[in-house]
């Protein structure tokens, strides 16, 4: 019998063709899925492939998503999107999602992230895939070239830090608040090369989109990736999108050695707000009440999934956005826009004054509509508030949950969403 192993170790051992691997060991793994997007994908790897005279190892395992420069606002972005389309066609990548939404959301919507998978993505938020009990890590374009040519990558097996969320989330508090709270309280250097495993009753009770937020912001926590053990909620999602559970699913052993465990007192967590210019500058919302905002932004892979729109609607129903604030809404995918239309959420949000923007990385990455002028203050449901990321280096971005962003849009200043839930 082999020694007990964590979920991450088991997945990496399977992908490395070994009986077991240990934290700290460097292994070469077979990649089950490689995701690239319009920014770091074809336009970067195409010249490198040509320089080496190499071809893609298996187009069936490659997914291409155009989400950063969409829709084209100038000739430069149009050229990049055109190059991406042509490359996907020439390379015979069947799974090409052109302007369907943000990669980290589009992949699971199409059932492409399966429990037990070893996946890589050419984007730092690729860790989102861990919500399905897969190991998915972010890499740069040259590392991706290696994967595209060989189907393999060398990785260090991370030790596991378990974040156990007790009880249940109080009203007006969400997975985003858990992650902002952790960004402020966990030393990111301590998470370097570690995997963040989220567990406990509050996580088990979460639907997939909230679990995605946990894994997504593992990047801001400084972790290699995030992971959550697959369960019936995971299976229901996969069945609903017509994918099925697949055959790779694994579970960690309860007695496996982990590096440490952090317990989060979920029932007593308040809404969190990160002040500029780092997610680590997070405090309870009550510390920032009254800070004036000029823009409220609900968008990005972190904060514009269907559930995020529902949170915003719970605050905005029957209310109006303040006169001197613009509320921008960029649903994370076209499918989410359609679902939010069907279930009435979009009507609540637009009646309140939200301005609907295209699905894509948009203002979060400083590339799409909604970027900021000198001196402007934005509160956003996104994951990063680095200086200059959303436009001017002299603008401020505050991070919060969709509840808190919506509350600020109504009040014209940072406000406690718990007083506004409908």
């Amino acid at each position: 019998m082999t020694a007990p192993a964590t979920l991450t170790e088991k997945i990496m051992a399977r992908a490395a063709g070994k009986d077991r691997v240990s934290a700290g060991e460097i292994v070469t793994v077979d990649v089950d899925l490689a995701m690239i997007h319009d920014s770091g994908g074809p336009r970067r790897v195409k010249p490198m492939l040509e320089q080496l005279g190499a071809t893609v190892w298996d187009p069936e395992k490659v997914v291409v998503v155009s989400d950063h420069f969409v829709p084209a606002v100038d000739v430069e972005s149009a050229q990049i999107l055109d190059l991406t389309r042509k490359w996907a066609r020439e390379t015979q990548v069947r799974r090409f999602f052109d302007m369907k939404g943000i990669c980290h959301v589009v992949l699971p919507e199409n059932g492409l992230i399966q429990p037990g998978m070893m996946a890589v993505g050419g984007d730092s938020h690729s860790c989102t895939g861990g919500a399905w009990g897969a190991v998915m890590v972010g890499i740069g374009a040259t590392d991706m070239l290696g994967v595209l040519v060989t189907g393999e990558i060398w990785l260090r097996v991370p030790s596991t830090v378990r974040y156990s969320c007790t009880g249940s989330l109080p009203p007006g508090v969400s997975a985003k608040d858990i992650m902002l709270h952790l960004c402020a309280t966990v030393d990111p250097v301590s998470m370097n090369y570690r995997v963040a495993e989220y567990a406990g009753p509050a996580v088990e009770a979460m639907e997939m989109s909230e679990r995605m937020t946990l894994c997504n912001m593992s990047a801001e926590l400084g972790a290699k990736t995030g992971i959550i053990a697959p369960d019936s909620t995971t299976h229901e999602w996969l069945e609903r999108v017509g994918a099925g559970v697949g055959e790779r699913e694994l579970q960690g052993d309860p007695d496996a050695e982990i590096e440490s465990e952090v317990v989060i007192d979920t029932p007593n967590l308040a809404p969190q707000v990160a002040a500029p210019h780092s997610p680590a500058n997070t405090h309870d919302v009550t510390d920032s009440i009254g800070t004036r905002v000029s823009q409220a932004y609900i968008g990005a892979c972190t904060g514009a999934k269907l559930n995020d729109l529902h949170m915003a609607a719970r605050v905005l129903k029957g209310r109006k956005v303040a006169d001197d604030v613009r509320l921008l809404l960029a649903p994370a995918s076209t499918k989410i826009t359609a679902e939010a239309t069907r279930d009435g959420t979009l009507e609540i949000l637009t009646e309140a004054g939200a301005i609907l923007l295209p699905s894509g990385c948009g203002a979060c990455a400083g590339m799409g509509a909604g970027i900021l002028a000198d001196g402007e203050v934005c509160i956003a449901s996104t994951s990063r508030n680095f200086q200059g990321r959303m436009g001017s280096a002299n603008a401020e971005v505050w991070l919060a949950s969709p509840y808190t962003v919506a509350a600020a849009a109504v009040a014209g200043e940072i406000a406690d969403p718990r007083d506004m839930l409908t």
Partner: protein
Amino acid sequence: MKIDGKTHAFGDKIDTDLLSPGAYMKGPINEMAKHCLEAVDPDFTNRAEPGDIVTAGFEFGTGSSREQAASCLILNGIGCVLARSFARIFYRNALNLGLPVMVCPTAHEIAPGTRLTVDPLAGTATEEGGRVHYCEPIPERLMDMVAAGGLIPYLEKTRIT
């Protein structure tokens, strides 16, 4: 391979938007490189000379997976980065692009403008005045790739065709 140059000092959490601002992502990389670190040090790109060394605190390169963060440093002539810790994607990207980067626990103690000689294989950074800073060395096999200019030139050079 040794690197000789003067240092440019930065603090903690030098993120990928400071190194390679998103607003310039779709344009040519040379244009983006002119804005490298301008939000925290507007004069950096004017002062930087070939072979210079960037020193920094914790979490250097945190944020995006964009390789342009390392490319912008290379295009400004930076020959090496010494930091108290690196974000892992940046660390891999830098080595893949031929930029030596080393974890140096005392990087924050090196005054800006210090002349430094860095030996990545030995894992040392020696000040002109003699003080030696000990870093995590870059393994020889990886240094072969770094010295070749990164993974692509290395593969071109070594691949049996």
